[in-house]
């Protein structure tokens, strides 16, 4: 049912001429990151890291908590600036763009936030209609059609008049996803889409991400640490830790990887290169030397 | 519907603000729009202005017809020059008009009282009143009183 619907949309888009995408043959990567360094205060978040996000594929950025996965998304979208290195999005260097060009480029990118980030003072319908109202001068009837199409695609057509506070966590994210794709972006970034979801909502989201990617020809970037869900839909996985890329490749390649950190992460071991204990002095000394 | 009431209440709010301004202007500060439309300036020099300030009233027979705009000192004669702004409707003061600095009540504010003379010509804009009577200074009065007593 859902699948048929998306195929219909995909056909519709092809009929419209692919909504003006400018894709050259050799330009296979929508995002190219070279020599990225970024630190916040004294903490180094990225140290000379390289990333390639292939066009039309699903790429997952994975790694232990607090390794700057979300920061990478913020760097790619130009919300923050890198200390060193270049970030090319669609062939344009993000740090050299002025405010206006940055906003123009961002219309081609969608981002799904962890909290959904729906505007709390508007209904679901108005939330999804918001980007259309801001960026287009479409008549109200057309906006209505587009909004209902996207809401139907995420299964929330019946929830259009609810306020965001009345939605469950999974529904919030689906409504936010409808808003993210309403302008037909070329790339959608998902910030921890599976965190805190029940198994059903998680399954729905996994399915939606996969369907969107194939039906709309999107590029998807998923930041996550839910290894099974991410691995099941990804074409490519980056594993980052301590500011460096520790492993990259398809899910199958990473499972075979021999490096201890990749193994610890892929198999979910409690101790390993990422230690169980926060750095502390020797346990024995600490216990005995308490009063001295 | 909800949007309508919102817009309506904002409109009423703005209206209340402007009405308040009008009330403050007309009722509280007694701003008379007609009165401000035209005025002319005359000068008078006093030996002692004794507490007269800018914005003091200028009256004729107790009726306010203008106000003091500025007070300065004439460096040659060491007398105080008072600049008065008089309503244009009252432009028939003769050139021999007398000006006196008076006090409202025993300790009240100082103001200028004008008494028109009998001359044929009227004061023009920028004209000057020569017949002036300075403010009564309490110390001088007491001094005079004591002097008279001694003489008796």
């Amino acid at each position: 049912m859902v699948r048929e619907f998306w195929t219909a949309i995909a056909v519709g888009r092809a009929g419209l001429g692919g909504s003006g995408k400018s894709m050259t043959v050799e330009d296979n990567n929508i995002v190219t990151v070279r020599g990225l360094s970024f630190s916040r205060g004294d903490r180094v978040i990225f140290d000379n890291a390289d990333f390639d996000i292939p066009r039309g594929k699903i790429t997952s950025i994975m790694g232990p908590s607090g390794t700057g996965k979300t920061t990478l998304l913020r760097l790619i979208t130009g919300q923050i600036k890198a200390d060193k290195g270049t970030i090319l999005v669609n062939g344009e260097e993000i740090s050299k763009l002025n405010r206006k060009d940055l906003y123009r480029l961002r219309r081609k990118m969608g981002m799904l936030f962890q909290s959904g980030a729906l505007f709390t003072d508007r209904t679901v319908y108005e939330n999804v209609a918001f980007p259309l109202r801001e960026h287009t001068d479409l008549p109200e009837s057309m906006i209505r059609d587009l909004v209902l199409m996207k809401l139907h695609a995420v299964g929330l057509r019946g929830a259009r008049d609810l306020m965001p506070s009345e939605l469950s966590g999974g529904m919030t994210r689906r409504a936010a996803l409808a808003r993210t794709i309403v302008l037909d972006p070329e790339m959608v970034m998902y910030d921890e889409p599976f965190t805190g979801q029940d198994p059903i909502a998680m399954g729905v989201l996994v399915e939606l991400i996969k369907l969107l990617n194939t039906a709309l020809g999107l590029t998807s970037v998923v930041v996550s640490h839910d290894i099974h869900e991410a691995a099941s839909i990804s074409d490519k996985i980056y594993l980052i830790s301590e500011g460096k890329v520790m492993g990259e490749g398809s899910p199958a390649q990473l499972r075979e990887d021999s490096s201890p950190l990749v193994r610890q992460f892929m198999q979910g071991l409690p101790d390993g290169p990422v230690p169980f204990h926060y750095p502390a002095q020797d346990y024995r000394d600490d216990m005995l030397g308490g009063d001295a | 519907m909800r949007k309508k009431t919102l817009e309506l209440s904002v409109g009423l709010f703005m209206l209340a603000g402007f009405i308040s301004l009008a009330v403050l202007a007309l009722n509280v500060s007694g701003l008379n729009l007609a009165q401000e439309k035209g005025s002319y300036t005359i000068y008078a020099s006093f030996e002692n202005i004794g507490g007269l300030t800018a914005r003091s009233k200028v009256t004729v027979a107790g009726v306010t017809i203008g106000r003091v705009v500025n007070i300065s000192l004439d460096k040659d004669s060491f007398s105080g020059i008072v600049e008065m702004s008089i309503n244009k409707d009252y432009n028939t003061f003769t050139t021999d008009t007398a000006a006196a600095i008076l006090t409202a009540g025993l300790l009240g504010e100082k103001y200028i009282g004008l008494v028109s003379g009998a001359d044929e010509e009227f004061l023009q804009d920028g004209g000057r009143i020569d017949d002036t009577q300075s403010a009564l200074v309490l110390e001088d009065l007491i001094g005079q009183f004591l002097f008279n007593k001694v003489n008796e």
Partner: protein
Amino acid sequence: MIAWIRSLGRSGLGTLQVLGRSGTFVVQSLCGVPKLNKALPLLNQQLYAVGVLSLPIIIVSGLFIGMVLSLQGYTILVDYGSEQAVGQMLALSLVRELGPVVTALLFAGRAGSSLTAEIGLMKATEQITSLEMIGVDPLRYIIAPRLLAGFISLPMLTLIFNVVGIGGGYLVAVDWLGVYDGSFWSNMQNATDFKNDVMNGIIKSIAFAFTVSWIAVFQGYDLVPTSEGIGRATTKTVVYSSLAVLGLDFILTAVMFGDF
């Protein structure tokens, strides 16, 4: 000692940095007015939230302050047999001083704190970042309407406060204490000058409006997006606004009414 000087210098530099950031922030929000048909509904909504919703507290406070002033003034003036001057005292103290200052303080507590909390919550729930990602400048979409609504509302509220206060004072003086209402008004009108008193009061309230809205909106936009950060920023808004209003009031009064 040296450490103390060093920390002083560091906090001085930090303050300067915050000042600079908040300055560019205001300029950026107000520069480049967006399309009028999109901006007006936003402004309307904020005028409602900031202005209309502040009306009850302003009206009630104005009424009581006017009544108290009248009562206090009467008890003092009646000893000198000049109780008619209560109108003059009431109007001058309200229009010049109490109106702008008390309204600004109440505004900081009622509207300023809610502006900070609202913007802070938008930041904490990533709504502001999400606006940026949709390609809408949050400075123009979120901040500018709130700033403008503050600029417009506070002078309006001050005017209403003044009128209600004088009305309350009139009730007490004339209806209750029996001051002759003709001399109540004429004394007031003789003493109050439109340009020097009423206009200067309005200028004061415009200055306060700018200060309070600026502080409130900037604190909301610049806060640490956690529940603790929102609480702290809200407190800061009220404290900084109140201090700024009182300090600014002294300076403005000295410039406007001081004779030197």
